[in-house]
Structure formats: C-alpha cells, structure tokens
C-alpha cells in the first residue's frame, strides 16, 4: 500500500508537468490544447534523436529536446492558432486535434511504430524500509519538482508571469495596461513546450519511446487539469497528484490496463459534482 502511494506521488508529479502546460495555455488562450499528448511524444522523440542518433548524454539531450519543442510550439502558435485567433474556442480546439495528428504521424513517418529506448545506464533500485524507488522515479520526482518550482517562480515573481496572469484574468484590460499579448502568448507556448518535452523525456526514461506514449497520458492529463480547475496551473499540480494516487492505488483492485478508465471515472465525477474543479473558486460563467 505504501509502495502504491509512493508510485502514485511519482506518477502524479509526472502528470503534473503537461497538466501545468495545459492549464497555462488554457488560461491565456482560452482553449483546451488537445495536442498536449502529441507534444509529449514529439519531446520524447526529439530527446531520442539527440540521445541515440547524435550520442548526446541524456543530461544534454533533455534540454535540447525542451528548447526545440519550445520553438516548435511557438511556430505552431504563429502558423496555426494565431491565424484563427478570432474563431471561437471550439474551432481552436478542433485545430489542436489536427495539430496533434500531424505531430504524431510525423514521428511515425520517420521512426515507425517500433518501440525504442533511450540510451541510459541501468541502475539498481533504491531500497528503504521495504520501499522500492527506481532511479528513474527519483529522476522524475527531482526534475518535475524543480520544473514546478521554476514555473511557480516565473508566474509569481517575474514580469512575464505577471503578464501571463493578467492576460488570463482579463485579456482586454491587460492589453490596455500595455502588456504585449502576442509576446506573452509566445512565451506561454515556449513554457508549455519545455514542460511537455520534459514529461516526454521522463516517460521515455521510465519506459519506452513509441508514437503513442503521449496519447496514453492524455486522459489523465485532462483529468488532472480539470480537477485542479482548468486554467489554474497550481491547481493542476494538486489534480495531477490526486490522479496519480488514484490510478496507482486503484491498481490494487482493478487491472492496470484500465488506468485511463479510472481517470475517466474520476473526471466525470468531478465534472458532475464540482465542475469548477476541486480547487477552482465558483466562477461566473460567461
């Protein structure tokens, strides 16, 4: 049981990264980015290319993947979402589905459906009072926590973060006050690219690289973001931890193949009982 709790926290921390990314873009652009799963896949493959094809150690491959994916995310913002920014959020949502399709199939085109692994040394798991902790899990925890601290710092303590929160609250008012919206949006996508890429690398570290890894997490990510009150990055972290814990502890009772099913059930329950999210305040609907 304690082992399941530990695993749950680790997997929650992992889900938290893309959930934060989802919440950030949702808060600022007001649409749910369905390509977040495909971005994870793209990030994992970018790291794989740097790591396995160019021989960069993973410590170098991960940041490379993060930067490249951030640039790709900005490019997609300019090429796609910016072009249809006046459309309703539903159109943007459908467009993000199209983007997801392109990203996922680009990786499939070049690398096929074969399962690949990153070139990292294998290490013995740490044992402590009967609890097992893999090195991969430790890495996930450390990287995810550091990334969260950095994002928290950016949001709370920097000009960019203030601009982001202002736009999230009231885009028109923010613009009137001289906040440059286009630039802030670019930075948001960059941040989102970095977070999803890191998540992709971490998932690949703990398992394998294949074109479906991102999609497999999509439901959990959305469930986490919705529980946290979608659009609220700090809530997303809490939501991710809840989802991680529920998924791992439910594995004691339900077959692990239904992990996503568990997230689905949690998602529906939250939507029906407390649609603004467990942490979201009651918000006036527009």
């Amino acid at each position, binding site marked *: 049981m304690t082992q399941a709790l530990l695993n749950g926290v680790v997997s929650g921390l992992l889900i938290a990264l893309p959930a934060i990314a989802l919440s950030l873009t949702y808060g600022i652009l007001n649409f749910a980015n369905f390509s977040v799963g495909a971005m994870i896949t793209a990030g994992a493959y970018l790291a794989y290319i740097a790591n396995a094809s160019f021989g960069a150690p993973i410590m170098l491959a991960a940041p490379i993947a993060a930067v490249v994916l951030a640039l790709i995310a900005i490019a997609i913002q300019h090429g796609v979402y910016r072009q249809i920014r006046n459309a309703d959020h539903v159109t943007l949502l459908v467009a993000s589905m199209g983007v997801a*399709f392109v990203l996922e199939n680009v990786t499939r085109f070049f690398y096929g459906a074969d399962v690949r692994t990153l070139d990292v040394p294998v290490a013995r798991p740490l044992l402590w009072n009967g609890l097992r902790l893999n090195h991969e899990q430790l890495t996930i925890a450390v990287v995810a926590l550091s990334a969260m601290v950095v994002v928290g710092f950016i949001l709370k303590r920097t000009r960019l973060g203030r601009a982001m929160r202002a736009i999230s609250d009231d885009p028109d008012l923010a613009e009137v006050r001289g906040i440059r919206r286009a630039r802030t949006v670019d930075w948001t996508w960059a941040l989102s690219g970095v977070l999803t890429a890191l998540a992709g690398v971490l998932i690949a570290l703990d398992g394998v690289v294949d074109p479906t890894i991102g999609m497999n997490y999509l439901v959990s990510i959305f469930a986490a973001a919705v529980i946290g009150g979608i659009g609220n990055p700090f809530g997303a972290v809490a939501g991710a931890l809840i989802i991680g814990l529920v998924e791992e502890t439910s594995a004691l009772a339900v077959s692990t193949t239904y992990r996503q099913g568990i*997230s689905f059930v949690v998602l529906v329950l939250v939507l029906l009982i407390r649609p603004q999210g467990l942490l979201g305040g009651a918000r006036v609907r527009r």
Partner: protein
Amino acid sequence: MTGYLVAILTFVSLAVLLGFALNLQWGQAGMINFGLAGFYGVGAYTAAILSKQGADGFTATVAAIAMTAGLSAVVSLATLKLREDYLAITTLAFSELVRLVLTNETWLTGGANGIRDIPRPLIGIVGGEGYELFFLLLCLVLVAGTYLILERIIRSPFGRALRAVREDDIVAATLGKNVLALRVKAFAIGGAVVGLAGALHAYYFTYIDPGEFAGFVTVYAFMAVIVGGKGSNRGLLLGACTVMILLEGTRFLKDFVPFFSAQQAASLRLMMIGAGLVLILIFRPDGISSEYRLSIRKSARSELNS
C-alpha cells in the same frame, strides 16, 4: 473497377452518416464529439455480437442504434453545468475507455483479434453474387432516409432551439428552453446515426477489430464536416467525397514513390489529413456550403452568417 467503385461509394456513405451525426451534434447543437470513433465502435460491436448470437440483421441494427444513442445521452450529461470543452474531453476519454474494453474484454469482443465472420443481413435472399451492390443500395437508401429525417429535425422548432442553445445557452434558458434536455436529445439523435453507421460497418467488412475505431475515424469525420461547411448536410456529401478522394488518392502514393514503406505511406496519409484539417480551418473556415437559415432575402444570407 466496378467493384472498386462500389466499395468506395459504400465507404463514402458510411462517412456521410458519421458526418450527419457530427453535423447535428457539433454543427447544430455546438457539442463537440471527439469520441466519435468510440461510439462508432460500440455500434459496430453491438451489431456484430448480436448477429453472431443469431439475431437477424434488422434487430441487431436497431439494438446497435439504441445502444449508441443511449450511451451518447449518458455521456452528454457531462455538459450538465459546463461549456463545450468539457464534453470534448469527456467524449475523448470515453472513446479511449471503449478501446480499452474492446481490447481487453476478450470474452465479449474477441480482444485484439476482433470478431470475424459476422453474418451479413439478407444474404440468404440476395445471394453472394450481387451482395456488394445490394449493400451499397441499402446504404444509399439509409443515407437518403437519414438525410430527410435530419433535415426535418433541423428545420423544426427543435432544430431552431438547438441553434439558439449553441449561440447562447443562457439566453435560450432565459426564454424557457430546457437547455440540458435539448443537448441530451441532440447528442442522442447523433449517436443513433453513428450506431447505424457502426452496424453497417460491421456488416460490410464482416470483420472488426479495436484498431478500426481509433482516433483517425473521428478526425476524418471532422474533416468531412468542415470541408462541407459546418451545419450543412448537403455540403457534407461533397465534403465526404473530398475526404475519400484524398484518402484513396494518397493510397496510390506508394506506387509512385517506391521508397516509402506501407507504414510510411499510411502515416503520411494521416499527416495530410491533420494538416488538411488545419489548413481548411485557416483558409476556408466556412467550408463549401453554409448551414440552413430561415431567411427572407436570399441575398442577405451571407451577412446573416456569423
């Protein structure tokens, strides 16, 4: 060649049925169904399992329609208090769940191996010889019937109320419309059409497996609807044909570019579908044809379209 044409037209009819469903759910009621593939799978599997148990084609099809409509109604309850994004998430998660069940509950669905030798309805009377043609005609009749029914619904007060809910649910609620009931009904009717398409799919291929009901089905259907013009069932006929030509056209790609493997050609096709979807949304967001509007002056139609 005739056989090929018959097959293509059958695919187009199935795509048109899916498009009809989306057109009602998304086009008219503004409810996004990203789980279309899952509902399609439910329809196909319901028809297949019942047919294998010895039910006749008609009963199995009706059961598939009822099953899909019922599940659609239940899933759409997620919009109880919320805006459309959440329905998109919920339906997508639902279709993932369907895929898991189809893959893992081997006792019911045959797991990854799927169900084979699904009995075709009326094959005893029609005979194997001209069955493909008969099936195409059956599909066309069903498409025409569905079209007439849906047009009727769209032009009825119910259809008008749906559009009102889509444009502004609060205003609609203030005017005394039961927003939730309208949404659930619209989603269930759409689901019924998806169930019909699913059942036809199972009968046509006589073999189904979980891989056929993955996300690409949803994206194709969305593409057909967007090409045709969201909300327009007539445009959809054209949209479905365009998508099918694109799909079939790229199938020949690997004959011309021999260094692509079959897998690469397949992923290239999916890539083009995704890119096509995005490009249409950017350059031609209204599609080929516009939705039905009750208008007095025909010339004012373009201004009325928001």
